[in-house]
């Protein structure tokens, strides 16, 4: 999706403003918002890629104007309603008006420590990797209206395979309910000037993590 979230290389956002001694959370609701998202993710009703798509699909003005955790809160409301887990009327009322649906699992307090570790996204490969380190590749010029992890600034560009990272869940299909469709993942290295032209510092190098369907031999 060519959305506002795909920010690499955009101009006009100003300086980065680090906050000295930044707290983990700036308000109690942020902490609860994070934890609610984690606990609902644990139920298995949606995938991580579907939650990322849920942020990307927010209207651009809402995306830019909302704090990070506000985006997470709005996304969670949207997902809960879209999956029929609760009605908008219930969220509005702040109470359940109807019984819940059965879910695969529910996160108990005692199990929380085990969920602090990320799961593995590696999957068995259906075929050998098409590319090897040192191969020159060109990223495809694709513009899917749905979730993808190939950023705009790195489309239709020539780079070099630096590393093969294994075979992973493919976000582009996982995000739209079409399954994991595992694909080989590569670190692809680009010269800064390939991405940004002569304005780039000559020594700059930028890499992306690219799934095999994004690439063709160069």
């Amino acid at each position, binding site marked *: 999706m060519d959305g506002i979230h795909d920010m690499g290389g955009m101009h006009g956002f100003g300086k980065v403003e680090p906050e000295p001694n930044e707290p983990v959370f700036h308000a109690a609701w942020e902490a609860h918002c994070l934890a609610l998202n984690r606990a609902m993710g644990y139920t298995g009703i949606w995938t991580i890629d579907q939650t990322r798509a849920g942020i990307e699909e927010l209207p651009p003005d809402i995306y830019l104007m909302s704090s990070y955790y506000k985006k997470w809160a709005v996304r969670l409301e949207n997902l809960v309603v879209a999956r029929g887990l609760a009605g908008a009327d219930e969220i509005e009322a702040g109470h359940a008006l109807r019984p819940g649906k059965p879910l695969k699992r529910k996160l108990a307090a005692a199990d929380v420590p085990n969920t602090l570790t990320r799961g*593995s996204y590696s999957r068995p490969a259906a075929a050998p990797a098409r590319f090897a380190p040192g191969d020159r590749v060109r990223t495809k010029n694709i513009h899917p209206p749905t979730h993808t992890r190939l950023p705009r600034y790195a489309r239709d560009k020539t780079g070099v395979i630096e590393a093969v990272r294994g075979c992973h869940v493919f976000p582009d299909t996982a995000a739209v309910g079409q399954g994991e469709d595992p694909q080989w993942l590569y670190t692809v290295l680009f010269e800064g000037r390939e991405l940004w032209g002569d304005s780039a510092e000559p020594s700059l190098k930028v890499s992306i993590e690219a*799934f095999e369907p994004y690439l063709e031999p160069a």
Partner: protein
Amino acid sequence: MASNHQDHPDHDDDYHGHGSELSEMQLRVRALETVLAEKGYIDPEAIDVIIEAYETKVGPHVGARVVAKAWANPAFKQALLANASKAVAPLGLLNRIGDHLIAVENTPQQHNVIVCTLCSCYPWEVLGLPPVWYKSAPYRSRAVNDPRGVLADFGVTLPADTAIRVWDSTAETRFLVLPMRPPGTEGWTEERLAALVTRDSMIGTGLPKNPKDA
């Protein structure tokens, strides 16, 4: 902090705007949590344990221990750079470090910077939750085409002949920068070394502390 904003909602516009979002969001998240709990999808006790973990257990002190060990122990450094998930797992820092962690080494020739231009991917297990600036539009937009300018925003100036390498975290791989060990720390214990390792030095937007200031 939160109650402060609610108690004084009538200050200038900026303050009022922020205060409004705060109280609106407090109510909104509380409503959502109540509904999800009453529906039986979440256990409020688990919510409290998750919050406590991210406030107290997971944080950049974990990554700092990894970096300090790599500085002090060449065999561990080699293992870390070869397969960070595997190398870090036996340290018992958390229950277990997940897959796909990759450590990248700074050298006099190359300085590494980590970003996620598409969202906010960040190595939570070794650095905790990402700071606001890491998730912000200015960082995500500029890190890939003006990293030296971004470093200047952090007050960091690198030698002109140090090349910058930016890693865009566009998949489930996660990156940890192994900064250069500061000179003047020969013979230091891992614990003392860890105190020099800042969060930003493990993202690539900062450098370790000067041993003279530690």
